[in-house]
């Protein structure tokens, strides 16, 4: 018995030791991690728009090299199901909350979140049903003290406001009902407003709690001060900026002041939210505009793609080859009746020479492009930088498209697809996205970022003469350049770039007198730039290249549109 037990015990001990080693070495030694997802504003998001997402990781024993993935299933009919994957973090993951802004799809099926170890092991995953939270129309976000108009508002804490401007993509208006102290959130809101957003700021006695340089850029008042009195609540007062309008008054003071800022609007309520009666809040709601997305940027990308010249051999090349071949055969046939050998030799030599010529042509000048894409960057330069990139693709055959973007600025399909077949599977790493593109389709994607301005507009006043200087910061060639002052459009010729010019030196143009490129720019800004009190520069630069490193040649067209407001010196 003893002889049997000893090896049995030592074998058991060996196994236990082995299992202990495995447990220590394996990634699961990181404990029993779990992940939780918070998606959208107060759980609400708009389909085919961006939504803020926060993933909270808990239960990790130690920081682990891993990735955080958010997966949304687009279509279960296909095999395997088409999925949109977004990697929101890659690196050393610890017990913390990771925030990102990701495109939200139809969310018929639950959203899947995975914590994936660098070796591919899924450490933790969870699903969150999002169907009930998905909305079709933009939503109102109340940041701070809750306000309810129709019960559909998303109420969030000001501290949880995202710092990516594009996170507010599906938002109709943001109401700051409590002090916002995060500079990053102010910068994001400022950029969003520049691009068409609508921001409502409650001030009154709370003003000094959130007063900062970024906030002052957005205010419709210069030199704001809080005025107090015994018989009524403190209110914010100041000198209205050019373009600012008082829309509502109460107690003999302006209550709601609105100013355009970039393509958007800022509405200032001069009181705190708690100082307002329900009836006054209802009146405010009527006067707050909805966000105005710059849809023209997407149509610009489509327009540029449609007008892109197709890369192909000259029209007459193939008919000429065919004609030469048939002519050679006919001639050879005629001569064959008399001089068979000579005709045969001539035919063989002719075909040989023709083949050599075709080989040279094919090898040296293969000019058929199978993929076309445009990348239109619209940069709005106010005190807050914001850029939106619209990608438009067309491929003759099914292909894979790679989109490089700013870190975390994942592209989203523009517009609501007409059917689920028009939703394209994509896999996004932090700074690049791979898109499976079916042949013959023309999807438009958009992404956002903080690309620096390519132009600056300097406005100088001296001795009652105002001069404007358009400076090219990247030395680019402009294909169209318009200066907009007080709603009037002036054409800026090439020789007027980088030098100060007066308005009288420039040609004023009406909408009907604009050329093709200028009309494209006009469509981008016509609906909002006329309201602006400042001078604006609208310029387009274009570039075209052929990417031959792909299996099928791709023609890539880049267009940069700069919208720059003038800074006075």
């Amino acid at each position, binding site marked *: 018995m003893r002889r049997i037990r000893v090896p049995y015990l030592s074998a058991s001990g060996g196994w236990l030791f082995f299992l202990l080693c495995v447990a220590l070495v394996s990634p699961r030694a990181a404990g029993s991690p779990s992940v939780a997802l918070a998606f959208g504003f107060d759980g609400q998001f708009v389909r085919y728009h961006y939504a803020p997402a926060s993933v909270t990781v808990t239960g990790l024993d130690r920081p682990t090299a891993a990735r955080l993935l958010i997966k949304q299933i687009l279509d279960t009919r296909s095999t395997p199901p088409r999925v949109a994957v977004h990697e929101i973090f890659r690196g050393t993951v610890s017990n913390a909350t990771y925030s990102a802004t990701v495109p939200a799809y139809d969310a018929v099926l639950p959203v899947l979140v995975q914590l994936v170890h660098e070796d591919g092991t899924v450490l933790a995953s969870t699903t969150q049903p999002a169907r009930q939270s998905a909305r079709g129309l933009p939503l109102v976000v109340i940041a701070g003290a809750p306000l309810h108009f129709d019960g559909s508002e998303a109420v969030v804490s000001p501290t949880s406001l995202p710092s990516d401007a594009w996170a507010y993509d599906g938002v109709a208006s943001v109401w700051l009902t409590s002090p916002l102290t995060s500079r990053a959130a102010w910068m994001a809101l400022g950029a969003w407003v520049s691009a068409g957003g609508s921001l409502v700021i409650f001030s009154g006695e709370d003003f000094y709690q959130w007063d900062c340089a970024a906030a002052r850029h957005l205010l419709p008042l210069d030199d704001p001060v809080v005025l107090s009195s015994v018989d009524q609540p403190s209110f914010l007062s100041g000198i209205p900026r050019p373009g600012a309008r008082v829309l509502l008054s109460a107690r003999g003071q302006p209550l709601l002041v609105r100013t355009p800022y970039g393509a958007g609007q800022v509405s200032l309520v001069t009181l705190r939210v708690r100082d307002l009666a329900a009836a006054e809040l209802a009146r405010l709601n009527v006067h707050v505009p909805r966000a105005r997305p710059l849809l023209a940027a997407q149509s610009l990308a489509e327009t540029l*793609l*449609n*007008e*892109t*010249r*197709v890369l*192909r*051999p000259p*029209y007459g*090349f*193939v*008919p000429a*080859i*065919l004609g*030469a*071949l*048939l002519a050679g*055969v*006919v001639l050879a*046939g005629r001569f*064959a*009746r008399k001089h*068979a*050998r000579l*005709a*045969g030799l001539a*035919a*063989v030599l002719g*075909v040989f020479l*023709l*083949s050599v*010529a*075709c*080989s040279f*042509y*094919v*090898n040296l000048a*293969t*000019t*058929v492009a*199978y993929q*076309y894409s445009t990348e239109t960057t619209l940069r709005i330069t106010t005190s807050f930088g914001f850029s939106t990139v619209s990608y438009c693709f*067309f491929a*003759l*055959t099914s292909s894979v498209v790679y989109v490089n973007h700013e870190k975390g600025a994942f592209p989203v399909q523009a517009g609501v697809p007409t059917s689920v077949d028009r939703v394209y599977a994509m896999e996004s790493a932090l700074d690049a996205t791979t898109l499976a593109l079916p*042949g*013959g389709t*023309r999807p438009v994607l958009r992404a956002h970022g903080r690309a620096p301005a390519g132009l600056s507009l300097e406005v100088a006043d001296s001795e009652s003469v105002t001069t404007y200087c358009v400076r090219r910061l990247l030395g680019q060639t402009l294909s169209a350049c318009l200066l907009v002052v007080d709603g009037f459009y002036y054409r800026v010729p090439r020789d007027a770039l980088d030098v100060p010019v007066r308005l009288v030196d420039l040609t004023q143009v009406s909408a009907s007198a604009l050329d093709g490129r200028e009309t494209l720019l006009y469509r981008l800004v016509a609906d909002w730039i006329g309201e602006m009190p400042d001078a604006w520069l609208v310029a387009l630069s274009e570039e075209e290249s052929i990417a031959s490193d*792909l*299996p*099928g*040649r791709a023609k890539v067209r880049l267009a940069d549109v700069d919208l720059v407001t003038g800074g006075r010196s």
Partner: protein
Amino acid sequence: MNAAEVFLGNGGYGALLGFLATSGLALVLSMPWVGRVGDYFLFPWRPSPLPFFVVLGFLAPLYAAQRAATIHWLPRRQRLHLLSLPLQVAGALFLSAPLVLTSAILAPGNSRRPLLALAVVLVGSAAVSIEAFAAARACFRRGLATAPAAWSVALAHALLPMVALVSPTARFLAALSPLGAALAALRGPTALELGFTLVPALLATITAVLVLQAVREEIHAPRS
């Protein structure tokens, strides 16, 4: 009997011109004709090498059948005719080489595949010509019309294996046809497809040996 007579006689001239003109027309139509990308949505005709090779892969066996359909009553001429058939097919496809080379610009990144497609069409069509000759000769010996047999063999050879394309597991069988082999070559053939491309050639070689043996026996047969 000179080379011109072999290649162009018995309707060969018209068949050759028709073959080249139709293939060339298919290539002309395969080219991208639109000027702007937006026009692709107005005229949904996509440039692709497929139409050209479909026409080439279909017409080459028919050309081969046309060349094989006429059987001379003298056994010696039959032997010469049989031996010249692969050369005639090769000659016609050699004449189409400029078109095939030009079609390479429609096969992005795989400019060698059209040449491979041309090679498999050549092998398949040469095999068709021998099989069609054997069928036509058999009819000739029975006093029947030769052309229907030759054309039937060619059409069967060109089209019947294409039925296999409907089955995802039996697709490789389509390579038995010159047309299917050409499509497989353009797509990037598997080893199995390449193997099946050679099967008709093997069968044709055996047929040719048997026919040549029979012809020789006829030549040396005592006259009664």
